[in-house]
């Protein structure tokens, strides 16, 4: 890879409150994967990860996650930076894999007030009953679109497009402050 | 009809206001009328008034399913302006604007037409280009509209935030000094009283349930909850309910009805001298004579006849209001409400004859109907009386959606780049 310097959309500084920390996530590779049923088995095997077919569910393994976003759409995230495009290129069944590693960036919200912090701008029911660990969906955070993923009872990952990241961070920081108020 | 005046009030004050007569009567419908207007909003009542006054047609009934002026006339934010882009729009709105001036005197009813100025804000280069285009077109059409710098805008509207660091800094504005507001109820009531005085019947709480037709398809009357009423000419002025009424004559319309919300604040001492509109951040605001800030919100995204909408629509509008006027966050919303606006594909109205002989339609005003009231009513009365359009409404035909001769004010303000 090049020596060229990467400039991330957000500084890696932690903000938030005692109730909910708000921290930009490390770099990861990502693809937007689109495919019909006929390609799922091959893609799952190429990615070494089952592609979930139930709404709002995810699969994860060794730092690689497949988030169900729609009936023919997954967001694949690899926290170890694997070349996901290359993995999918081995599959001949019709599908669309598109690199979105740099389009998206992520923010981790963690702490007992994490759900409240996100509910400062997100209209979904984030109770464990309705949004259990592993749940994921595309949704809204106030005026922007996000992908929300719950990695543990009190930790969420918010993915958004890079130019919206400062806004997302601002909303989450205010939400986190209010969650502790 | 007794004339309204300061003297009349003084006289009545002496006798505890016992001498006032009803502003309009509540007659039982006759068997038939020369013209039936469906819908007793400002446009419908005005049409009846001008039929009587300008065309000598007084055997007219205005049929209303609820109470007169209870639809969009009584629910809008009362902005009056005529600085539209296209010649066609300038024609009809300009026609209305000229009639607003002097309407109180014509009706002997103070409609509180207030030329306090309408300021439309430009927030980006595209807005500037678009407003300049409007200003030049208006100037050559003889319609006042002028460009203000941000500093001039601030001088005209002191609460305005013209900080360069705001999210969408103001790059200037188009000001129509003769634009302003009027008292919405007074417009409906003034037309009702004046039309009633000339013999027009206003029949409230009477719903039209059908349109009856003759052997050649021509209209012969309406079925109503008060029975059949005969007529050779029907003018449909039913705003959000137009599709429903026109369907009774078998005509499917290019209309969609959306909820439109508005709100007022608690009354405040005078703080806001004019009308300010910003299409870019979606804010429409003025202050009523009672002191309430009157704020227009946007339409909900789905068609509805519910006359209610979502809180998020109001939220969106107030975001913009507080961005433009940051001192208003502590002002309180006192009342919010919804109307039903009928919207055409090109966002311009339809004032037109129809394929059904004797049936005329005036609709599709979207969010802009109030300001057009006198012009629309006047031109529509002409169309009904003469069986041909007035020059002000000639372009607003129903068949333009077949030919493609649209008058697309919304597209003309398209977002750039």
């Amino acid at each position, binding site marked *: 890879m090049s020596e060229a310097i990467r400039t991330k959309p957000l500084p890696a500084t932690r903000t938030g409150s005692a109730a909910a920390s708000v921290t930009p996530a490390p770099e990861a590779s990502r693809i937007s994967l689109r495919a019909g049923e006929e390609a799922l088995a091959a893609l799952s095997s190429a990615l070494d990860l089952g592609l979930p077919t139930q709404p709002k569910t995810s699969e994860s393994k060794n730092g690689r996650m497949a988030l169900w976003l729609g009936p023919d759409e997954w967001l694949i995230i690899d926290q170890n930076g694997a070349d996901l495009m290359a993995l999918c290129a081995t599959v001949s069944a019709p599908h669309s894999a598109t690199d979105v590693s740099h389009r998206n960036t992520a923010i981790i919200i963690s702490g007992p007030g994490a759900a409240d912090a996100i509910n400062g701008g997100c209209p979904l029911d984030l109770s464990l009953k309705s949004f259990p660990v592993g749940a994921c969906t595309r949704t809204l955070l106030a005026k922007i679109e996000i992908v929300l993923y719950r990695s543990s009872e009190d930790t969420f990952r918010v993915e958004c497009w890079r130019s919206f990241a400062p806004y997302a961070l601002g909303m989450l920081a205010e939400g986190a402050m209010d969650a502790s108020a | 009809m007794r004339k309204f005046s300061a003297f009349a009030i003084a006289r009545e004050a002496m006798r505890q206001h016992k001498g006032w007569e009803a502003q309009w009567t509540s007659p039982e419908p006759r068997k038939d009328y020369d013209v039936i207007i469906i819908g007793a909003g400002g446009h419908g009542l005005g049409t009846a008034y001008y039929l009587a006054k300008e065309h000598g047609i007084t055997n007219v009934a205005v049929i209303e399913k609820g109470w007169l002026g209870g639809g969009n006339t009584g629910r809008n934010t009362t902005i009056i302006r005529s600085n539209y882009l296209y010649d066609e729009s300038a024609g009809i709105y300009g026609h209305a604007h000229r009639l607003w001036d002097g309407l109180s005197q014509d009706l002997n009813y103070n409609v509180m037409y207030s030329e306090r100025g309408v300021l439309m804000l430009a927030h980006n280069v595209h807005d500037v280009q678009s407003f300049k*285009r409007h200003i030049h077109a208006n100037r050559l059409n003889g319609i006042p509209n002028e460009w203000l710098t941000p500093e001039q805008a601030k001088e005209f509207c002191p609460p305005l935030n013209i900080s360069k660091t705001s999210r969408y800094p103001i790059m200037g504005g188009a000001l129509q000094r003769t634009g302003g507001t009027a008292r919405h109820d007074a417009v409906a009531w003034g037309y009702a009283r004046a039309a009633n005085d000339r013999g027009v019947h206003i029949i409230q709480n009477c719903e039209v349930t059908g349109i009856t037709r003759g052997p050649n398809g021509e209209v012969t009357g309406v079925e109503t909850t008060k029975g059949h009423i005969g007529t050779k000419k029907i003018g449909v002025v039913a705003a959000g309910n137009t599709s429903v009424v026109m369907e009774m004559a078998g005509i499917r319309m290019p209309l969609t009805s959306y909820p439109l919300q508005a709100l007022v604040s608690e009354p405040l001492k005078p703080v806001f001298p004019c009308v300010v509109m910003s299409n870019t951040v979606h804010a429409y605001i003025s202050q009523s004579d*009672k002191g309430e800030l009157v704020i227009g919100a946007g339409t909900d995204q789905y068609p509805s006849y519910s006359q209610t909408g979502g809180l998020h629509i109001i939220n969106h509008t107030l975001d913009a209001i507080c961005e433009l006027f940051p001192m*208003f966050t*502590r002002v309180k919303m006192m009342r919010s*409400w919804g109307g039903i606006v009928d919207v055409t594909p090109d966002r311009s109205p339809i004032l037109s004859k129809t394929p059904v002989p004797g049936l005329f339609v005036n609709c599709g005003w979207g969010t802009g109907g109030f300001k057009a009231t006198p012009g629309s009513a006047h031109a529509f009365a002409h169309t009904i009386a003469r069986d041909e359009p007035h020059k002000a409404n000639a372009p607003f035909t129903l068949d333009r959606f077949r030919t493609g001769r649209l008058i697309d004010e919304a597209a003309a303000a398209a977002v750039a*780049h």
Partner: protein
Amino acid sequence: MSGAYRIAGKGRLTPARQARFSFDGKFYTGLEGDTVASALLAHGVHLMGRSFKYHRPRGPISAGSEEPNALINVARDATREQPNVRATVQEIFEGLKTNSQNRWPSLEYDIGAVNNLGAPFFSAGFYYKTFMWPKAAWKHVYEPFIRAAAGLGVAPKEADTDHYANRYAHCDVLIVGAGIAGLSAALAAAQTGASVIICDEQPEVGGALHYEAGTTVDGMPGFEWAQKTAQKLAAMDNVRLLTRTTAFGYYAQNFISLTERITDHQAMVEKSAPRERLWQVRAKRVILATGAIERHMVFDGNDRPGILLASAARTYLNHYGVAVGKKVGVYTAHDSAYEAAFDLKRAGVEIPAIVDTREKPGDAVMAEAAALGIKVLTGHAVIKTSGRLRVTSMTVGRSTKGTTTKYEIDALIMSAGWTPSVHLFSQSRGKLTWDADNARFVPGTHAQDCLAVGACNGTDGLANTVEEALGAGELMARAAGAAADAEKLSLNTETAFEWTGGMVGASEGAGPDTVAKAFIDFQNDVCAKDIRLAVREGMRSIEHIKRFTTNGMASDQGKLSNMHGLAIAAEALGKDIPEVGLTTFRAPYTPVTFGTIINHARGSLFDPTRKTPMHDQEAALGAVFEDVGQWKRAWFFPRAGEDMHAAVNRECKTVRETVGMFDASTLGKIEVVGPDAAKFLDLMYTNAWDSLKPGRAKYGIMLREDGFIYDDGVVGRLAEDRFHVTTTTGGAPRVLQHMEDYLQTEFPHLKVWLTSTSEQWATVAIQGPKAREVIAPIVDDQDISNEGLPFMSVVECKVLGGVPARLFRMTFAGELGYEINVPADFGPALWDALYERVEAAGGCAYGTETMHVLRAEKGYIIVGQDTDGTVTPYDAGLGWTVSKKKTDFVGIRGLKRPDLVAEGRKQLVGLKTRNPKVVLEEGAQIVADPNQAKPMTMIGHVTSSYWSEHLGSSIALAVVVDGHKRKGETLYIPMEKETIAVEVTDTVFVDKEGSRINV
């Protein structure tokens, strides 16, 4: 200390916990927990405000949020000033500053009160009948006068320094109101395991138990039980208890908005604490336990300071320990006022008489009155009152005609009965039914999954209320799916009296044919006679009457006045009340600050600010940015001493002569992938794509179905099944939506997928004769010669020693040009690397303004500037993009409509001013005959206009009627001060043959 009217041993406040506050500059000592109203009443101060129209002196009539009179201004500091605050709601704290409103020069001596003398003239709707002559006077004299007289508080002048928060919440059962009904319902719901939110507008729970001194629940005094119950609920994991929280809106599908007031009662405010929080609650089930509001009696002079609702007097006494007077008259049509009289009497207050309009009040209260030695005048009325700034007497008689007796008093309490608070139920679009026996509207048909319990449901009696509420709590929780085992709850309640009675409408002396100032709507100064006047003037609908008189339209939203107004209207119309109908209840229940509603959406969170990856680099070069949608785009890069004009001239010249670099990252990008990708694009664009070879690119035009231009952009084919589509910056989201719509709903058989990659790539355009030599060193192993990478081609390669890139050979400037796309994190590195080389080559960075000039010199359109949604490709001179071979694409039929193929369409042309130094104004209108009168016939307008430094003249693009046939014609542009002659030309001003591009 805390006031001469504070009664030792009464109330629940702690005498030792004092707080000093000011009202109109004078300092008072109150107790913690006091409202401004209770604290002032404790000092014998009743005068707290002036009415809207007549500026009549007014004191608080209530002890709650229904207060119409006692509106004050509350200021923490200059940036935190709040007008129109109810003194009956605002809690005091040490240092609180409050002021009265709507008076000048002072509350005691208000010049505006002259309106009161003119009251006969200012009848309802008087303004519709006058101020019409002379015509000009409305604008210059009458309206300014009316405006200045109207209004209540003064709007804040400075931006608010408080902040506000929002929380979306979900629950199984939302309970509105935490009086005995709401608390009972919450207990029953909570023990089933359901998630419960219960809210109440007051600082503590309890509702009516605030004043109900004689009620016990499970052996405890009612208020104490309520606090214990609240503690118990608050300790449960599945319950959220919110006090100082008003449910103000009930929207579709059980979406309820609440406003929680967090800091307005605090002396010291934590910086992180929001002032108010909006709760947007989606509840599976809703229980409304909103209680009832006492009505006043409608009689002559019923608005003087010192005249209050009976329940308010009880609240002041039993909760705050404050007597509203020392000699308190009672006027009632309902038993409830008796209990107030009993409580006051027992507290040592003199009760000269209870005046009851009824011949037969309840037996129990009559017996108790006798026992306490209180005189009761049944079948009597208070005919009038006197007192300027405070009531000093009431005149009592059987009727206005007979003998009357005057009683000296310093306060008068009253009750006409209770109005169920059906506001939220009505907002939920439930239908109300008329309970004729009790003259009240109660919830009837439900429109949503909610139940009303207790007083708001018209349920009378404590035991009935509790039973109903317990049942509803469990029922709604079960309906929401709660399944935990729970025991059947019951509560033992005892109360001193069950009440009877009530009336709506005007009392004796305020009936027809009177001139009495018997107020219905206090704030808006609407009297009984105003309602009758409206009816006399032909108003039949209650909506007309409301609007004509403004009854119920004040900031209390008619909580006290609606029923009285309706009854008087019904009487005047000779109809039954339900026939006249009720006006619609609308959100909010009580006024809500804009701040609560917008909450976080201020400053940087008002709307996202989108910046490109290279924003900081551009800012460091001194870029001035422009807003394009949510994006900040570098507009121009002024150097020392340069204005915009100079900077743009230099940038243009530099690009044409050497090289320039431009941040094109904001352009929309869509990856179109799949075996049917070309087929799909064939349908979406006018052009043909099947024939485009991988590695090549083409300019495409997209139409709407109606045939008008929707968007444009360059599309590159990366592989047989993969296209890189670009859109305009503003068009990116709508183009994707448009494509998805057709793909999913009209062409679902096509195997192709769309992915937005707008933000995956950072894009730098390098344009100018030296473009190739500038990029050569940073491109790894890729032939970029004219042969290796010809004009309109695209290649995936590496740059900067290994960074993957998509390299386009294309231009929007009419020069040798490239656009380099790299993954966005590498954008700054790419920019820096290029800038170093561009600068070394004598080039510069340029912004959107220069981009616009360069493209206009080439006649390239900007969608949205040169087109406006009414322009076809033919109008724009882009007919060559429309495939003649295709049998279908979006817009193919729309293009053939009669008006789109008719003569006389506006077509895009170039314009040259006769004087080349004159730059036209964009938007300027074009005429053929400059000497015609207004309104002129306009045949087109200038869409783009610039100074071309390259040509040394101005250039312009315009749309003109039949413009393509007018080349060479002279047309005119009438400006304000001069008319400019222009010649119609071709749209291409520079390098018509394209020789600069293909090198």
